[in-house]
C-alpha cells in the first residue's frame, strides 16, 4: 500500500485537523469527529455524514446553503450514534434537525439511534434516506438501492431551502423530492485501498472494469471489458434514464463525479457524451457539476447523477452556497 499517511488508525483524526486548519468557516466539536458551521443561523439544522474516505463529502459541504454538521466515521464505516447525536445537539436551533442519510444499513441504524437519543432530549428530528444508485435493484424486500453521489444534490437543495427559512417539514419535503428525482450510476477501473486493510478491496484485470460500482468498492452489476468513454457513458445513461421519468423539454442537472483517482480530463470527456445524449433527447441541462464530490479514496472511476428539475428544485439548486468544496454565487 502506497499512501501519504502517518498511521492507518489516525487518518480520520489527522484529516479532520487538516480540514479545520484549512477552512476557518468550519469548526470541530471538541472530542468528536464532527464538523459544524462556525456560525449557525436560526434555521432548520441539516446533518449528514457517513464513513470517511468520500472526501470532500461530507465535511466539505458544511457551510452556508448546505449542511450545518457532518459526522465522519472511520474509513467506509458509518459513524456511531453518539457522534451523530452530538452533531444534532450542536446544530439544533430549536427548529428541528433533518438527517440526510445514505441508504446503507450501518448509516441508517446509527443515525436512527442518534435521532432517538436526540428526540428523547426534546429535539425534533426527521430523516431522509438517499438511494440514488440504479446499479442496485430497488425492492422493499431488500436493503434497496444505495446512496451515492446524488446525495450532493440533496445537500445543496435541502440546504438552500433551510437557508431560506423553511420549516422542518418543508425542508424534508424538498429533500424527498430531490431523492425521488435523482438517479446515479458509477463504474470503476481500479480498486481503492482502505488504509487499515492495506490491500485493494477488489482486483480487476488489466482490461476489465466493474459496472455499477459502489462508493465503498462494493461490486455493481457485472464486470466487462474496458470500452470507450462514449460507450461506457451511454451504457450508464441508459440505465439512469430508464429509472428516471424524464422526457422532451424536461430540465435536468448533471453531476459527473470522480471517484478519487480519475483525471478531470476524463470526467469532462464523459460530460461531453452526457450532454450529447441529453441534447439528442431534447432534455435541457440547466446546470452541470464536474469534479470529485463523493469519492472512494483512491478508486479509479466515476459516477453520473441526473436530477430532474422542476421550478422549485431549479431555483434552490441555483441558490448561493459557500462551503469548502462548493461555492456558488
Amino acid at each position, binding site marked *: 500500500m502506497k499512501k501519504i499517511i502517518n498511521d492507518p488508525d489516525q487518518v480520520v483524526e489527522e484529516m479532520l485537523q487538516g480540514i479545520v486548519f484549512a477552512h476557518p468557516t468550519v469548526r470541530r466539536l471538541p472530542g468528536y469527529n464532527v464538523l459544524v458551521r462556525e456560525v449557525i443561523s436560526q434555521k432548520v439544522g441539516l446533518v449528514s455524514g457517513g464513513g470517511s474516505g468520500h472526501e470532500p463529502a461530507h465535511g466539505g459541504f458544511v457551510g452556508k446553503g448546505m449542511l450545518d454538521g457532518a459526522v465522519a466515521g472511520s474509513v467506509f*464505516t458509518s*459513524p*456511531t450514534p453518539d457522534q451523530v447525536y452530538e452533531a444534532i445537539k450542536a446544530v439544533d436551533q430549536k427548529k428541528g434537525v433533518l438527517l440526510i442519510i445514505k441508504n446503507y444499513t450501518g448509516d441508517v441504524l446509527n443515525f436512527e439511534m442518534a435521532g432517538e437519543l436526540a428526540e428523547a432530549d426534546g429535539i425534533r428530528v426527521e430523516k431522509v434516506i438517499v438511494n440514488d444508485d440504479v*446499479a442496485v435493484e430497488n425492492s422493499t424486500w431488500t436493503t434497496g438501492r444505495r446512496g451515492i453521489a446524488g446525495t450532493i444534490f440533496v445537500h445543496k437543495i435541502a440546504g438552500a431551502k433551510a437557508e431560506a427559512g423553511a420549516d422542518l417539514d418543508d425542508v424534508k419535503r424538498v429533500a424527498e423530492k430531490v431523492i425521488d428525482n435523482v438517479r446515479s450510476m458509477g463504474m470503476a477501473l481500479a480498486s481503492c485501498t482502505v488504509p487499515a486493510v492495506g490491500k485493494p478491496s477488489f482486483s480487476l484485470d488489466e482490461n476489465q472494469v466493474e459496472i455499477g460500482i459502489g462508493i465503498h*468498492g462494493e*461490486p455493481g452489476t457485472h464486470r466487462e471489458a474496458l470500452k470507450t468513454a462514449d460507450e461506457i457513458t451511454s451504457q450508464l445513461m441508459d440505465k439512469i434514464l430508464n429509472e428516471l421519468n424524464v422526457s422532451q423539454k424536461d430540465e435536468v442537472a448533471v453531476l459527473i463525479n470522480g471517484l478519487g483517482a480519475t483525471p478531470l480530463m476524463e470526467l469532462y470527456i464523459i460530460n461531453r457524451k452526457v450532454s450529447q445524449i441529453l441534447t439528442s433527447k431534447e432534455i435541457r441541462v440547466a446546470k452541470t457539476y464536474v469534479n470529485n464530490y463523493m469519492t472512494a479514496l483512491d478508486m479509479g472511476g466515476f459516477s453520473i447523477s441526473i436530477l430532474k428539475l422542476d421550478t422549485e428544485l431549479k431555483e434552490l439548486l441555483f441558490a448561493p452556497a459557500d462551503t469548502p468544496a462548493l461555492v456558488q454565487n
Partner: protein
Amino acid sequence: MSKHVAAIIAIGQAIITNKEYLTELDREIGDADHGINMAKGFEAVIHKLSGLDEDKDVGFVLKTVAMTLISSVGGAAGPLYGTAILRAAVPAAGKFELDAMTVQAMWEAAITGIKERGKASRGEKTMLDALEPALEAFSVGIRDGKRLLDCLNLASMAAQNGVEYTKTIVATKGRASYLGERSLGHQDPGATSSFIMIKALLDFFRSQGSV
C-alpha cells in the same frame, strides 16, 4: 475480576484474534471492515471493563458493553450487536449468576432487538442465520434438561451450521444484498462473528470446568 466480565473478555479476545479473518470475509461481499470494526469495539470493551468495579451485576456489565460497542463499532454491526446486548441486559439486571432460563430469555431479547433494529429475518444472510438456530438448539437442550455447558455446545454447533448455510443463500439485507446472486457461495461475516462469540463463550466455560 468477576466470571461474567472474564467471559466477555474471552469473547472479545476471540473477536480480536479473528479480526483479519472477519475482515477478509467482509472484503468478499461487503466493505472489508467487519473484523476491524468489531475488534475496535471489543478493544474498547476490554479497556472499559478493566476499569469497572468488582461489584457490578451482569445487567450493568452488559449495558456497559452495549453502550461501548454502540459508540465504537459503527457500521451495521455496531447498532445491531449493541441493541442485542442492551436488550439482553434487561433480564440480567440485578443478577450475579445466570441460570439456563435467564440465558434463554436474554438470548430471545437479543434476537428480538436485532430484528427490530435491522428489520431482517432468518434466511437473509445475516447474523440472524447463526443466532436464531443457535438459540433454538440451546432451547431444545434446556427443554431436554441438559447442562448449560451442553446447551451452549449445541448452540455453538447450530451457529456453525448457520454460518455454513449462509454460503448457500442470497443476501437480501445489509451491504451484501447489493451483490444479489453474486453473494452466493460466500459466507456472511456477521453470522461468522456471532458464531465466534458463541464458540468463545463455550470455550471459556469449558476452560473454567464449571457450569
